C-alpha cells in the first residue's frame, strides 16, 4: 500500500519519463525528415537514469552531461520548446542556435551543459563542486557519462581529484554496453567499466539497475546525501541500454535483434507503469499521462516548426563577455 504522496511522486516520475521518451521519438522523426541540423544522440531506453537522478536533486544543485543530453536537460526542468527549437535551428533555441543537439544547456535550471568531447566534462564537474566546497554551500554536482568514457584520461584525472579533494560530486556512468559501435566488453579488462575501477580512487563500487527509476533514486539519492553532508564523491554505474543506434543516423546493425528484444522487455517505462498499476493507479490515469504528454509535444513541435530561423548576424554575438566577437582594434 503506498501513500498519496508516493503515488503522486511516482506518477510525476512516470510523466517525466514518458515526456522524454516521446520528445526523443519526435526528435527521431524530425531527424528523418531532415529537419534536425547535425547529429542527434537519443536517450530512448535510458530515461530512468536521467529522471531518477534529477528527482533527488534540489534547485541549487548542478548537473552536467554529454551530447546524449536532451533527457538530462529536460529532467532538470529545461523548457522543452526551447530545447526543440535549438535542435531545429529556430529562434528561441536554448543556446541561441549556437549549440545544437550536442550542447544543450540550461544553467537557469542547474544543467551546466552537454559536452561532446569524451570525458571533458568530468574535470569541469570537479570544478563546479569545488566552487561549492570553497564557499561552504551544500550543493551537489551530478555528472553523467557513458561506459566508453571510462577509458579516457580525463575520467581518471577527475575521479582522483574528486576523491583527494573530497568534492561534493556524484559521477554517474550510464553503462549502455556500447561506445559508438563497439561493445564495451571488447575494450576493458574488467567486467564493469566504472564500478570495477572505483577502488583505484578509494571509492566503493556502486551499481544500480539503471532501468528501475526507484532503484536509481535510492542509490544516487544516497550518494547525493553523502556528498551533501561532506562525505565526498561517489561513482555510480547504472546499467541500461539504448533502444536505438548511437545517434539517430545509426541503424545499429552491430547488435542482434534478440539482444535488443531482451532489453526492451526491461524497458524502464513499462516496468514503472507496471509498478504504478500494482500500487493501485488506474490504467486510465496512466493513459491520461501519455495523452497529455503527446498533446504537449505536438503543440511545441508545431510552434517550433513555425518559428523563423535566427538572423545570420546573431552568429557574431555571445563570444566574449562583452557580448561581442572583436579580438583586435
Amino acid at each position, binding site marked *: 500500500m503506498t501513500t498519496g504522496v508516493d503515488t503522486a511522486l511516482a506518477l510525476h516520475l512516470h510523466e517525466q519519463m514518458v515526456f522524454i521518451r516521446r520528445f526523443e521519438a519526435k526528435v527521431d522523426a524530425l531527424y528523418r525528415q531532415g529537419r534536425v541540423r547535425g547529429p542527434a544522440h537519443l536517450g530512448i531506453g535510458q530515461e530512468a537514469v536521467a529522471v531518477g537522478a534529477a528527482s533527488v536533486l534540489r534547485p541549487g544543485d*548542478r548537473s552536467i552531461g554529454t551530447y546524449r543530453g536532451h533527457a538530462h536537460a529536460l529532467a532538470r526542468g529545461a523548457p522543452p520548446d526551447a530545447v526543440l527549437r535549438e535542435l531545429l535551428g529556430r529562434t528561441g*533555441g*536554448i*543556446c*541561441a*542556435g*549556437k*549549440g545544437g543537439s550536442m*550542447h544543450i*544547456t*540550461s*544553467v*537557469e535550471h542547474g544543467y*551546466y*551543459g552537454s*559536452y561532446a*568531447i569524451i570525458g*571533458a*566534462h*568530468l*574535470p*569541469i*564537474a*570537479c*570544478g*563546479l*563542486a*569545488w*566552487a*561549492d566546497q*570553497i*564557499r561552504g554551500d551544500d550543493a551537489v554536482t551530478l555528472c553523467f557519462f557513458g561506459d566508453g568514457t571510462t577509458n579516457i*584520461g*580525463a575520467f581518471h*584525472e*577527475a575521479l*582522483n*581529484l574528486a576523491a*583527494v*579533494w573530497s568534492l561534493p560530486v556524484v559521477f554517474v556512468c550510464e553503462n549502455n554496453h556500447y561506445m559508438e559501435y563497439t561493445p564495451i566488453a571488447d575494450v576493458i579488462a574488467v567486467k564493469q567499466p566504472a564500478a570495477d575501477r572505483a577502488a583505484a580512487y578509494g571509492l566503493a563500487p556502486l551499481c544500480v539497475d539503471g532501468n528501475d527509476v526507484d532503484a536509481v533514486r535510492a542509490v544516487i539519492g544516497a550518494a547525493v546525501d553523502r556528498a551533501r553532508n561532506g562525505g565526498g564523491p561517489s561513482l555510480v554505474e547504472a546499467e541500461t541500454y539504448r533502444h536505438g543506434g548511437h545517434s539517430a543516423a545509426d541503424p545499429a546493425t552491430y547488435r542482434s535483434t534478440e539482444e535488443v528484444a531482451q532489453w526492451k522487455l526491461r524497458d524502464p517505462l513499462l516496468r514503472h507503469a507496471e509498478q504504478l498499476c500494482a500500487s493501485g493507479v488506474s490504467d486510465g490515469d496512466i493513459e491520461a499521462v501519455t495523452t497529455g504528454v503527446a498533446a504537449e509535444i505536438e503543440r511545441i513541435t508545431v510552434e517550433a516548426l513555425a518559428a523563423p530561423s535566427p538572423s545570420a548576424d546573431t552568429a557574431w*554575438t*555571445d*563570444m*566574449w*563577455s562583452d*557580448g561581442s*566577437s*572583436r*579580438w*583586435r*582594434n
Partner: protein
Amino acid sequence: MPDLTYRQAVSAGLAQEMARDERVVLLGEDIASGGVFKTTVGLRDRFGPARVRNTPISETAIAGAAMGAAMAGLRPVAEIMFSDFYGVCWDQVAVEMAKARYMTGGQFGLPLVVRGANGGGLGFGAQHSQAVENWALCVPGLKIVSPATPADVVGLLAAAVRDDDPVLVFEHKALYGTKGPVPDGEHVLPLGSAAVLREGDDVTLVALSLTVGLCLAAADRLAAAGVSATVIDLRCLVPLDAATVLASVRRTGHAVIVEENPGQLGWGAGIAAILAEEAFIDLDGPVVRVSGGNIPLPVAAPLEAEVSVSTDRVVAAVSRLLDVPVPAVVSLA
C-alpha cells in the same frame, strides 16, 4: 616604487588580487609550497590552503576544474607549470573553455586565468622550452597575455584575473630573474593596449615578452649607427592592439616583427598579414619577421643560440631591410 624580480611580481600580482577578491583561488602542481619557479611563494601561508591548492599531476583536471569553478562563480587561476604541458590539456583549453560560453548562447562567463612558464633560453630542451602563444592564437575564445617586465606582470595579471573571459598568461622563464620597478599600491593595466617603449622614425620593431628586451638592445645599437627605431611591446595578442602597430608602421614605413616561436606559423605571421592588408600603401619595404627556427629546441648553448632569436639577428634584419651597415658588437666574453 620597489624593485621586484619578474618571479616576485607573479606572486605580488596574485596576492594583490586575492586580497581584493576572495573568489580568486589558485590551483596547480606544487604551488602551495611556492611553485617550482617560486612564483607562488608565501601565498598559501597568507591566504590559506583552501584558496591555494596543490593538485595531482593532472593538467586536464587542473584546467577543467578551473573552468568548472569559473562557471560556478569563482575566479580561479590555474598554473600549468611549463607551457609545453598545454599539449596534455589542450582539449580543456582550446575546445572546452574557449567555446563553452559561445556554444551555450552566453549562459555563463568563464572568468579564469591559466598561467605558467613559457619560452626558451635556459637549456631546458625541446619539451620544456617552447614559446606557444601562437598555439592559442589559432583559437578564438582565448585571451593571450605575455608580459615583458615585472610591472607588466603585476598589471596584466591583475587585468587577467578581473577579466570575465578565459585568459592565458605566458610568463617567460628566462625573465623570472630579471628585476624592475613596480608601482606602489594597486597596479592594473588594460588588456589589449600595446606599449610604445621607444619612438623612432626609421623602422618599427614589434615585440612580445622575451623579444622586447632583444628589440630594445637592438634599437640602442641601431641608434649608434644612425638608425632610429620604434619599439612596440604588444603585451597581449588577444585582444590585439593592431591600431598602435599600424599607426607606427604608417609613420616609419618599415616593420620588423620579432617572435620567439618558430616562424612556420608564428604570431608574427598574423601581424604581417594585417600590415600587408591594411598598411600596404604606407610600406617602403617588405614586412620582415625574425623568428625562432623551425626545429625542436636543442640544449647545448651554441646550438640553442643558433636557432633562437637574438639582438644580433634583429640588428642584422634591420640593417638588411634599410640597407644601412651596422657594426657588429665584439663580444668580450
